[in-house]
């Protein structure tokens, strides 16, 4: 039953764009139909999850199709349900946002295509999550990846959008290639295409399989150094597509890693160490890069890399716990990673939707052209502020809970193991602390420069609040962030079910290990005290008797452009990390004359893996291949000669068989 409901949900999501094709082009019903179908799909997913009775670990449904000799099966277990919920939930909220953000009458060329592709992303991702047959998995993966390409390039008249789309396409092709290799190995090992557990696999095959799968899934999840496509795609796509990319697409990569790890026997310790180190590097470098960004959506994209790093740290801790036989460490790490999947989906989507509202209303995403938007877009500012506090992992919101779980996993691992592993866990804690500090610095910068202070340009000064539909979508996500932060016990049943699907031998209960009750208490106490202070402020004598210009130590005539810019704010930290970031600075040469003229200063942070490594390597390869151009002569004669040579060689080779 649950599997059938899940399948219905996936199908509804996939076809959500179809009614828009037949409805009149400019009519608002076309937009609304897609949102309605996706909302229905999300409700079906919730129903499927609820109907998955805890005692039955998995429910499967065999479809009446035979592919390569095996029936296609879809199933719903704890892990699949855990990932299906945010997949369809975030898509549905984003499509609700898109009704007001990307209406058909404002974008006649791209709206229909975008709706169709958007539904297919959700449908494909849902299929990946519920499929139990390797080829259904790959089919869903491909549909999702290609539909994402078409969604990213919705505004393909812009050259930057096309470039970002092509880089994304190249990366997703590479990831699919790696996955095909992994599934081929899986088929060789299990002699079939069904995704079932392989407890007896030998270590070498395990490692090869996991390694290939890791390459493919990490390319999709976007951890460093395979994150090439992420910043460009997020910056250039329409905002609700970026929200879905960050909130949902990256998590499908994580789902793949966790699912593959669950199929294999406990991996070697070095594999868990590798995943943990990869997560640490991705987290620290991701947030360091985010600090140097001056465009809002690119900044959020790099923070996605950071959060994927945190999730991978949790997965690494879980794998280590499983290899070393410490169930509490395994459960805490896995619960932290999975809960962070939900949390990141919620607050990153919220942040992207807020950023979309800002970009749409003020016309630009450049941080140094904005400012003072809290007075003009108050509700957007509040929602974005909630998202910012959540992503920094600060109490009382949801980011804190999942980061606490990962901390607890690392701390317990540090206590239980000595020597090198203990030191690794300790450095993981230090890295997570550093990441938290840097993320707070980056988001206070983003929030402050965009929403606070005075508007830096006339466009920002003229902005007004976003339409109702966009605000409702943001408010729903903000409420969910607060809910999980204050009452994390709500998520515990799903987490435990997912953990049991991952490793049925896990007997520990999450409630015993993690102090959810105390967290709720602390969060409520904090909120209550803040509410009390707010009430006191509003009621008593804290009404301002005077509103003046900013005193600023008596500075007489400040202008909005004298405010601290985002690059100045982050300059200290970017300078500290210059060994990893390689920032570019175009400073003016002031010359020797006494009165210098107008000058410009420009700072830029090109992505090292993309701009300094991959693209130059591609250009060198293109240049080096010109050495081989002589093979391609353009004369028919040469080609016939090649055919002749091939035939003669064939003769000579076949002689052995004949003679």
């Amino acid at each position: 039953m649950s599997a059938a409901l899940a399948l219905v949900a996936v199908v509804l999501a996939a076809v959500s764009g179809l009614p828009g094709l037949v409805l009149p082009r400019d009519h608002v019903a076309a937009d609304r139909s897609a949102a309605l179908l996706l909302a229905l799909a999300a409700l079906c997913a919730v129903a499927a999850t609820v109907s998955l009775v805890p005692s039955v670990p998995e429910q499967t449904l065999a479809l009446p199709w035979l592919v390569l000799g095996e029936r296609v099966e879809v199933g719903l277990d704890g892990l699949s349900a855990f990932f299906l919920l945010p997949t369809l939930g975030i898509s549905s909220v984003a499509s609700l946002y898109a009704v007001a953000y990307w209406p058909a009458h404002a974008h006649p060329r791209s709206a229909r295509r975008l709706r169709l592709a958007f539904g297919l992303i959700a449908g494909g991702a849902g299929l990946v999550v519920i499929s139990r047959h390797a080829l259904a998995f790959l089919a869903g993966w491909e549909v999702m990846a290609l539909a994402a390409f078409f969604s990213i390039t919705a505004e393909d008249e812009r050259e930057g959008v096309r470039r970002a789309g092509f880089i994304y396409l190249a990366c997703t092709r590479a990831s699919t290639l790696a996955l095909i290799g992994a599934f081929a190995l899986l088929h060789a090992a299990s002699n079939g295409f069904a995704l079932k557990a392989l407890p007896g696999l030998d270590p070498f095959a395990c490692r090869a399989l996991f390694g290939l799968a890791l390459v493919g899934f990490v390319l999709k999840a976007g951890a460093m150094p395979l994150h090439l496509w992420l910043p460009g795609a997020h910056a250039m796509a329409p905002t609700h597509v970026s929200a879905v990319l960050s909130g949902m697409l990256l998590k499908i990569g994580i789902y793949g890693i966790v699912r593959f790890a669950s199929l294999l026997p406990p991996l070697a310790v070095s594999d868990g160490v590798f995943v943990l180190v990869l997560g640490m590097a991705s987290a620290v470098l991701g947030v360091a890069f985010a600090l140097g960004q001056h465009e809002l959506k690119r900044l959020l994209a790099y923070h996605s890399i950071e959060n994927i790093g945190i999730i991978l740290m949790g997965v690494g801790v879980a794998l280590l716990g499983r290899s070393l036989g410490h169930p509490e460490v395994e459960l805490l790490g896995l619960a932290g990673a999975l809960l962070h999947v939900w949390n990141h989906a919620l607050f990153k989507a919220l942040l992207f939707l807020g950023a979309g509202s800002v970009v749409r209303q003020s016309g630009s995403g450049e941080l140094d052209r904005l400012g003072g938007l809290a007075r003009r877009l108050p509700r957007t500012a509040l929602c974005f502020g909630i998202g910012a506090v959540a992503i920094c992992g600060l109490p009382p919101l949801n980011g804190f809970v999942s980061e606490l779980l990962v901390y607890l996993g690392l701390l317990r691992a540090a206590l239980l193991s000595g020597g090198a592993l203990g030191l690794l866990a300790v450095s993981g804690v230090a890295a997570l602390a550093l990441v938290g500090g840097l993320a707070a610095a980056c988001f206070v910068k983003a929030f402050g420069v965009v929403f606070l202070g005075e508007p830096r340009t006339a466009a920002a000064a003229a902005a007004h609040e976003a339409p109702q539909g966009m605000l409702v979508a943001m408010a729903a996500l903000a409420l969910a962030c607060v809910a999980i932060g204050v009452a994390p016990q709500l998520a515990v049943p799903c987490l435990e079910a997912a953990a049991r699907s991952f490793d049925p031998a896990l007997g520990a209960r999450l409630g015993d290990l993690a102090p959810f009750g105390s967290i709720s208490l602390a969060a409520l106490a904090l909120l209550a005290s803040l509410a009390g202070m707010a009430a006191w402020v509003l009621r008593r004598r804290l009404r301002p008797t005077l509103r003046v210009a900013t005193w600023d130590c008596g500075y007489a005539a400040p202008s909005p452009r004298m405010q601290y810019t985002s690059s100045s704010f982050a300059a200290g930290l970017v300078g500290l990390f210059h060994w990893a970031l390689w920032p570019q600075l175009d400073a003016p040469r002031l010359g020797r004359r006494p009165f210098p003229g107008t000058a410009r200063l420009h700072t830029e942070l090109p992505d090292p893996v993309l701009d300094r490594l991959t693209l130059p390597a591609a250009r060198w390869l293109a240049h080096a291949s010109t050495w081989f151009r002589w093979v391609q002569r353009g004369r028919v004669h040469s080609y016939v000669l090649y055919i002749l040579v091939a035939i003669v060689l064939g003769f000579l080779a076949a002689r052995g068989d004949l003679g």
Partner: protein
Amino acid sequence: MNWLEALVHLAVVLLVPPLLLGVIQRTKARVAGRRGAPLLQPYYDLVKLLRKDVVLSRTTTWVFVAGPAVAVATAVLASLLVPFGERVAPLSFAGDIVLFAYLFGLGRFFTIAAALDTGSSFEGMGGAREATFSALAEPALFLALLVLVSLRGSLSLSGLVGEDTHILWVTAVAPVALACLSLFVVLLAENSRIPFDDPATHLELTMIHEVMVLDHSGPLLGAALWGAAQKLFVQSALLVRILVPLPDGPAPLRWVCFLAAVLALGVVIGIVESTMARLRLRQVPMLLVAASLLSAFGIVLLVR
């Protein structure tokens, strides 16, 4: 949880921190050869500020008011995690070290946001410096606490410093000393004391914390100063509980010893501030990284 002790705890954190500030100021004055202001001067200042009217800037929003409010709320809530004179803090659970650090992070977030809210370049500068240095202080704090976690095997602050702290000094002097030194550096950094920031400077370009509250006035400034004092008190309390094993006697004795130790630490802070000069800003990150390395070295000593 003993309700009476919890109430005493709350009263201490609400009322005593300005006294700590007074002790520090008095010590600095005496070392400089002056008589100094009365010990209770910070209380007089707070009352004076509370009686003033509220003047707000046209540029600011609700974030400006939220800054001091969140600073106070987070400091008080964080104090509930640290055992003062009692054996077990009013709120204690496995993993509360993380909550302790992140509560102060929340307070810092809103303080910096309140600074950016004014649209002033001085406050933006202060916010940028505060964000940079606190990002580096976080790992140092965690590593210092990790030394204690490795020694005691507990993940709760009450378990780390609650009882039998003399055992720490007997069994592993070197790592604990390194951790305490590191914690002291973090204390000075987070609370804007010399050598990181001069609380008595009048030059905006040299300020960090002072410049963030430049536009706060009246009751809001009072709340900001009170929150800062509470933060200093709570972090000093943590350091004191590691350094000084409290006698195993009745509760009033423990509380008196605790308060005396905290004020003594205030005197030490005053002497450090009087004898050292402020570091150049470029050297501050190096000092914070050095503090992290000290604690890391302590952990290596333990784990090997």
